[in-house]
């Protein structure tokens, strides 16, 4: 179902809701397309007319600065008209259902929704119920998926490691609540890395996680041993209040990325983080700002990757789903 929902009859990207069900070829196509936009960003004229006359609504039911800004920049550089709508959760709790919100916006003749929502499955729901000519891009739904973030991470990994074959990747932190981790795991497996490890205390690892094709590990020494890529996840402060963790201090001691435990990894390992980072909670400043960190490159790659996804989805419009 997921596969058909996302793809047009010709097998091209119609919606981008999750990595699940997408082929290696399609993910590679996204990365290759993004490559061309990276080159463009380095030119003085940073705009192309690919989406001229198209209207994109950034529909954010949950706050986000970074993701929304990069989506906005990506759309603007493709010459689309962009409207940002921050629908705080209070607006929907006043009685307007998700479906009513969508129907109202549809009536304004838009071409694409970029959606962020606090509930898992919201983007799927919108894609299933929106008019057939509208594409839906998932900018993060609950704890389910954040596929554009995962693709910009894959792009960054490919920039540095050239190929995914043989790579060992460690994802460290709150896997349980992380839509980023879920999408990264799917993408890394589809692109064929050798091994994915998830490192966290048991409180922050989902049940039966190994069925997702990863190895759960509970210490940094074991988990980071010989890895090529380290992906740190942001730790939400509220996890302290609900007995997931005793304290930030203890978390940093066990699972924080420091210069000392960075040495467990391969010498040329790269350090990634989807941001925003908590210095001294999940990552030491010296590592975040150190030579192995590619955190800021991730941010700039985010624009190119989102341009690729927006343009690909817009181009399949009109093809039967």
């Amino acid at each position, binding site marked *: *179902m*997921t596969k058909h929902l996302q793809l047009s009859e010709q097998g091209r990207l119609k919606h981008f809701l999750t990595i*699940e069900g997408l082929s290696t070829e399609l993910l590679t196509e996204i990365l290759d397309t993004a490559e061309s936009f990276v080159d463009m960003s380095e030119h003085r004229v940073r705009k192309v007319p690919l989406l001229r006359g198209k209207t994109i609504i950034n529909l954010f039911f949950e706050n986000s600065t970074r993701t929304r800004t990069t989506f906005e920049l990506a759309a603007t550089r493709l010459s689309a008209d962009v409207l940002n709508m921050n629908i705080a959760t209070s607006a929907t709790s006043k009685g307007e*259902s*998700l*479906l009513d919100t969508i129907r109202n916006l549809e009536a304004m003749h838009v071409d694409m929704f970029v959606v962020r*929502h606090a*509930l*898992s*499955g*919201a983007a*799927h*729901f919108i894609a299933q*119920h929106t008019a057939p000519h509208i594409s839906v891009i998932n900018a993060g*739904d*609950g*704890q*389910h*998926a954040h596929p554009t973030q995962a693709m910009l991470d894959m792009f960054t990994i490919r920039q540095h490691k050239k190929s995914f074959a043989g790579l060992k990747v460690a994802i460290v932190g709150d896997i349980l609540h992380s*839509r980023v981790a*879920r999408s990264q795991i799917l993408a890394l497996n589809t692109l064929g890395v050798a091994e994915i490890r998830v490192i966290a205390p048991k409180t922050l690892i*989902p*049940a*039966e*996680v190994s*069925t*997702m094709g990863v190895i759960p590990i509970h210490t940094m020494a074991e988990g980071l041993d010989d890895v090529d890529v380290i992906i740190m996840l942001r730790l939400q402060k509220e996890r302290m209040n609900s007995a997931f963790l005793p304290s930030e201090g203890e978390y940093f001691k066990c699972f924080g990325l420091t210069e000392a435990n960075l040495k467990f990894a391969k010498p040329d390992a790269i350090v990634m983080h989807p941001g925003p980072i908590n210095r001294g909670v999940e990552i030491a400043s010296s590592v975040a700002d150190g030579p192995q960190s590619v955190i800021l490159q991730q941010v700039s790659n985010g624009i190119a990757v989102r341009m690729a996804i927006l343009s690909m989805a817009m181009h399949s419009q009109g093809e039967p789903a």
Partner: protein
Amino acid sequence: MSRIIIRQGRIIDPAQGLDTVADLCIESGKIAAIGEHLQASADSQSIDAQGQIICPGLIDLSVRLREPGLSHKGTIASETRAAAAAGVTTLCLPPDTKPSIDSPAVVELIKDKAQQAQYPQILTIGALSQRLAGSELNNLFALKQAGCIAVSNGHAALDNLLILRRAMEYAASHDLLIIYRANEPALSGQGCAHEGQFASRYGLPSIPAAAESIAIAQCLELAELTGCRLHISQISCMQSVIKLQQAKKYGLQVTADVAIHQLHLTEDDMIPFDSHYHVIPPFRSVKDKEYLREGLANGTIDAICSDHQPHDLDAKLGAFPETEPGIASLQTLIPLSLKLSQEHGLSLLDTLAKLTSEPAGILGLPSGQLGIGRAADICIFDPKATWHVDNATWLTQGKNTPYWQQTLTGRVTHTFQAGRLIYQQDQ
């Protein structure tokens, strides 16, 4: 009242261990005779039941009618029509109506509506605590006097174990059955799916099996302590079966049921984010399902119910976690029970016992059997007939079923309630 002779059906009456092809005669609302070539009289009607199964009308331990208070989801009229079409002749209505079944007045209102709907055999389950809030007991004796068959707190939690203990003691004093849905709210939280690979993969807030089995362990202890008659409703996991089996082995008087869909569907069957699979307790693992089936076969689980919960369309439209849980399941009860019997090797007689004589025993009812002189609550179904789940066949107001647009085998053709034909399949 005239005589009705049902000819040449396969009569299955679990209470008597009867499984035979014969005629069955209804007279004056009662079962008058079972035998070969029963004599027709001038005014008798005849129903040809060749190739069909005749069994006691089903007794369903949990059917939400949604009335009073939630008639946009279902009404007593609409849902009893569906119950009749499902072969259900007696149903228990849980207390979470609006208002909840807190007082004899609500019980009376429901009785009146049942009469109007010409489906009198609705058994109300009284609310254990006031407004189901979990802190203060209702006037349980008054509810019993008004006709409540049992008391329960529905899906709502009780504040603490002391309330449950007192409720059990007080109910035991009035020989009232407590129906208990086992759930430890601190562990289930805002979960909407089983804590297993499906919820992990799709990032859904999850409910561990232990949220149920811990609560079962607790209520079994308190049943032992208080001597209360306890029935545990809609169990869903392996550890619950094991705990019940142990308690029964040591002689505790406790019974349990399982919802029909839990015996068929698991987390592996769920279509991502399809809210028709949103149900509480959630669809568990394949292993849990196997234990439930085994527990049913070995008598640990006494009864099967539909756990029918009709919803309006809006309730199921939204991101999965915000949709309302529950499945409209009355009309899938017979087809899924037949499927269970075939797949698990449980005889049809034993399977039907879980829908007739066993629930009758739990509730202390004289019905659920085809003994001569008993009220003629009878279900006739064609075990081979296939039907398509769609607007033409579906009678409940709620179209919320994972089986929508599927073809099922086994269809009720006639339902009699106290000798009155309350459903006949359109030819």
